[in-house]
């Protein structure tokens, strides 16, 4: 009688402690489903196709991750401000949601190494003769008023002391003005530039190069205490680049020059 009670107690204790030892990586594999937070109103990273199924770079990235783990992927749509709350309330396992790796966010969630980088790209009218960022000196340039790139570009124009800067209300206005030759070149996020050139609505423009402005690195994220999972995610991102899958997805969804995910002169 006493022994059986003791044995039962031991068994319960083992069951409880082993449950506590299983980390999130084990939980995901055991559950057979990987739930990713993805922003679906942010093409080409996340969007919905004509039959309202999720598509985009982030969606494919989540599917790849699920495949690597040997589980099925579940895309959980989260608007930008809901990404981290969704993780904290346990609705998702991992965020694959174009999340900038700010130090402020890293206080709440665990960030991986960057898996994507939003670079600033120069788009020029083909007749303007602008072939690089330096060629913009002395030309008439424009961007969407108030954005990060517009502020940086206006500053550059002032430094050059030549040329003119024109602000526009929307991104579409900028590309329309560029296509009509009102401005010679513009600076915008590479994904936006490629997407607009691809639509064919703006003839006579092309992406000519990168602008030397701050790059927006984005990371996957999960609970900050889940080192096992974060390790796995870091290795996964490394493998995506190594195997060429990153380049493949970039070509499929964005196009143009592949942004480097490493920062010169520092580890991580």
């Amino acid at each position, binding site marked *: 009688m006493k022994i059986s009670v003791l044995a039962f107690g031991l068994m319960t204790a083992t069951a409880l402690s082993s449950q506590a030892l299983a980390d999130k990586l084990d939980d995901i594999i055991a559950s057979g489903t990987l739930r990713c937070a993805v922003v679906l109103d942010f093409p080409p990273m996340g969007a919905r196709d004509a039959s*309202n199924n999720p598509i985009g770079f982030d969606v494919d990235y989540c599917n790849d991750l699920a495949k690597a783990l040997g589980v099925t992927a579940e895309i959980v749509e989260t608007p930008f401000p809901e990404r981290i709350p969704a993780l904290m309330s346990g609705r998702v396992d991992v965020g694959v949601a174009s999340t900038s790796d700010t130090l402020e966010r890293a206080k709440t969630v665990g960030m991986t190494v960057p898996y994507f980088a939003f670079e600033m790209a120069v788009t020029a009218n083909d007749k303007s003769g602008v072939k690089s960022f330096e060629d913009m000196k002395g030309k008439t340039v424009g961007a969407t008023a108030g954005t990060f790139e517009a502020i940086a570009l206006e500053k550059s124009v002032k430094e050059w002391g030549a040329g003119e800067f024109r602000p526009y209300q929307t991104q579409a206005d900028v590309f329309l003005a560029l296509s009509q030759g009102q401005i010679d070149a513009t600076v915008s996020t590479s994904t936006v530039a490629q997407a607009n050139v691809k639509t064919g609505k703006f003839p006579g423009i092309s992406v000519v190069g990168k602008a030397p402005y701050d790059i927006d690195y984005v990371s996957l994220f999960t609970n900050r205490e889940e080192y096992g999972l974060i390790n796995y995610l870091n290795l996964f991102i490394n493998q995506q680049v190594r195997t060429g899958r990153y380049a493949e997805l970039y070509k499929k969804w964005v196009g143009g020059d592949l942004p480097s995910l490493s920062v010169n002169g520092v580890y991580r």
Partner: protein
Amino acid sequence: MFSTALTWSDLAFLAQGAGMTLAVTAVSVAAGTVLGILFGIIRFQFGPYWSAPLTFALDIFRSVPLLIQLVLGNALQSIAKMGWPPFTTSCVVLSLYTAAYCTEIVRGGIDSVPVNTRRAARSLGMSWWQDMRYIVAPLAIRVSLPSWIGLTLGVMKDSALVLWLGLIELLRASQILVTRLQEPLFILLLCGAIYFVISLPIARFGRYLEERWSPND
């Protein structure tokens, strides 16, 4: 002329959303009504003094906005590591919310049965259960039905708030289409029309029952 990018598959997507709205409503109203009847009887039977804790708890569910209840409920289940999917969380919170209102409806219904009628039943030798089943229930249901139908319709529309937990119901489905197609006015009109279409039969059915059960009023 009017033209839209909305396709049949988008309509099917909206219909799926409407299905989710109906599912959440059905589960919540069913569970909420059962709980409401139970709580209502307890409140009536035990009197205001002994049922004060229950009354207080139900008052919380009646006075805190539903959205806050949903967000707090979701946070609670995640802190307690219950691992509920959003559908379960939504249904549990909505059921309690429905139960809180239903309790008052049931209590009011039982209250409306004349005490003398019940005394007469008991003096004929009926047990408490028989009195409840054959005297109180038929009279109370007649009185309570209109408010209960109103509650059901209210819960159906309030269920739109579960989109906050990531459930794709009718309103969320319309929002997704608005994001993709940029035709807010038309899509939201359509969404409103669907709400109307699914509410109307319930309202009509309530009216029909009311008329059938009170032929002499």
